[in-house]
């Protein structure tokens, strides 16, 4: 991908996929090479919810908190996942295996309650199913 500023978002996405987050050094470097201000880079990096300026674990769990999933008891899913991995939304496990977030509608309302782990979508969740899914990431 060429080094012009219209590729800023794409370059950030590539870095995010590679390193799991966008470090300050990377953003400084990117600003220099694209000849844009650091605040422009930081502005884009913090605008999008799938980009992170803070270190994240290898696996990012995103549970849908929007209304259609809420109607199907997403609260129970949030609690189950939280109990299983021992952290709250917004946190990362000490062993760096999982980061845990809540997200807005992921377009899986027909299989609510639903969540994503990295790019994978899991629907029709229940506690048993969650246990199996989480195990597959250990």
């Amino acid at each position, binding site marked *: 991908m060429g080094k012009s500023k*219209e590729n800023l978002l*794409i370059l950030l996405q590539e870095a995010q996929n590679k390193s799991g987050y966008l470090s300050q050094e990377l953003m400084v470097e990117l600003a220099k090479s694209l000849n844009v201000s650091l605040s422009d880079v930081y502005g884009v990096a913090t605008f999008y919810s799938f*980009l992170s300026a803070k270190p994240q674990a290898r696996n990012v769990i995103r549970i849908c908190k*929007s209304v259609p999933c809420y*109607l199907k008891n997403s609260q129970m899913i949030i609690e189950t996942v939280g109990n299983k991995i021992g952290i709250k939304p917004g946190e990362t496990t000490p062993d760096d295996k999982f980061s845990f977030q809540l997200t807005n509608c*992921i377009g899986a*309302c027909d299989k609510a309650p639903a969540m994503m782990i990295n*790019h*994978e979508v899991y629907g029709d969740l229940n506690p048993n199913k969650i246990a199996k899914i989480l195990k597959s990431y250990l």
Partner: protein
Amino acid sequence: MSEKRIVLRNCGIIDPERITTYLDRNGFKALEKAFSELTCEQVIEEIKASGLRGRGGAGFPCGLKWDLSRNAQGDEKYVICNADEGEVGTFKDRYILEGDPFTLVEAMAIAGYAIGAKRGYIYLRTEYHYLLGLLKNAINQAKEKGFLEHFDIDTREGAGAYICGEESALMDSIEGKRGEVRYRPPFPPSRGLWGKPTIINNVETLMNIPQIIVNGAHWFSKLGTEQSKGTKVFSVSGDVKSPGVYELVLGSQLKELVEDLALAKNVKMVQVGGATGRIIPHEMMDTPLTFETILGAGAITVFDESRDVIDIVCRTMEFLAEECCGKCIPGRQGTEAMVEILKRFSRGEGRQKDIRVLEELSSAMMLSSLCGLGQAAPNPVIDSLQHFRSDYDNRIRESEGG
């Protein structure tokens, strides 16, 4: 009324990974017809005559959009497919892309021919990353078969932002920026992506194009109502027995979709059009689904009698406050102020004067917000105040009494 499959005609029938199965269903016949029998102007006339309107929620006449862009001056022009389906409760574009990516590719090539564009982009939300391979495969197979000799299609992946489904924010995102809404005019058909004439169409809008070209505008315009031609694909979820995607002729009643097809019982209300959509109480279930009445992008969220209206409205507003891009004050501060008031109601601390503030704030936001998010954010508040006023009044009485 039963389903009528035009947009979904190939979903579940073809193999979305193999173009030959699409060709067996008359795939790319529309593009061939456009190239060999119709001028660019005739293609646009056909779409205009069909009465096709945008399926992303705004309902803008598709042919007119194409015409504006064809007539705009520009050395380069672009076709963008908006596959950033982020509206709460919407998943029909996901279903379409999963089942039939080829029709979309064909439609974009027809659009490119019509407006004189050589390049198109599909902007896919990152939540649908798992569909990216399927889309790229469809584009490559179409290229190999020689259907994309005059038109290149590229994919762009979003990075998690509801507002990027708004067309001007979407273009900023393709340009590598924060997805913030632009001031208009100029509108995209005259100055869009990179400042060049651009048409942006929703996935479902484009899916209609090949059928209109093959069967003619007259065939299409016979379906639906005066102002709403063709079918609409609905995403139904919430308190229903059979959630899923249904395609109905426009003008069908909400009741047919929600009760007859999705098998809902004891319905209290239905949110039509997602977070910025309208709330329809049970008494109005015979409302026809049209652009003239209620439609949006076709998100149908059903709530049964056990649900608390204020709780739902509050959660909806929290979503909008979070996803607002922050550029204009009515959008940014208005949604936050509404969340604050609605949370007060949820906690049982609502006051009589809050109702007046909600109403005033609603009209200010509708008048002065920069984009559809802020302009339509008050909808759930206004509708719930109109149809479920007693829920608010009871809550106030309880707070004041307690």
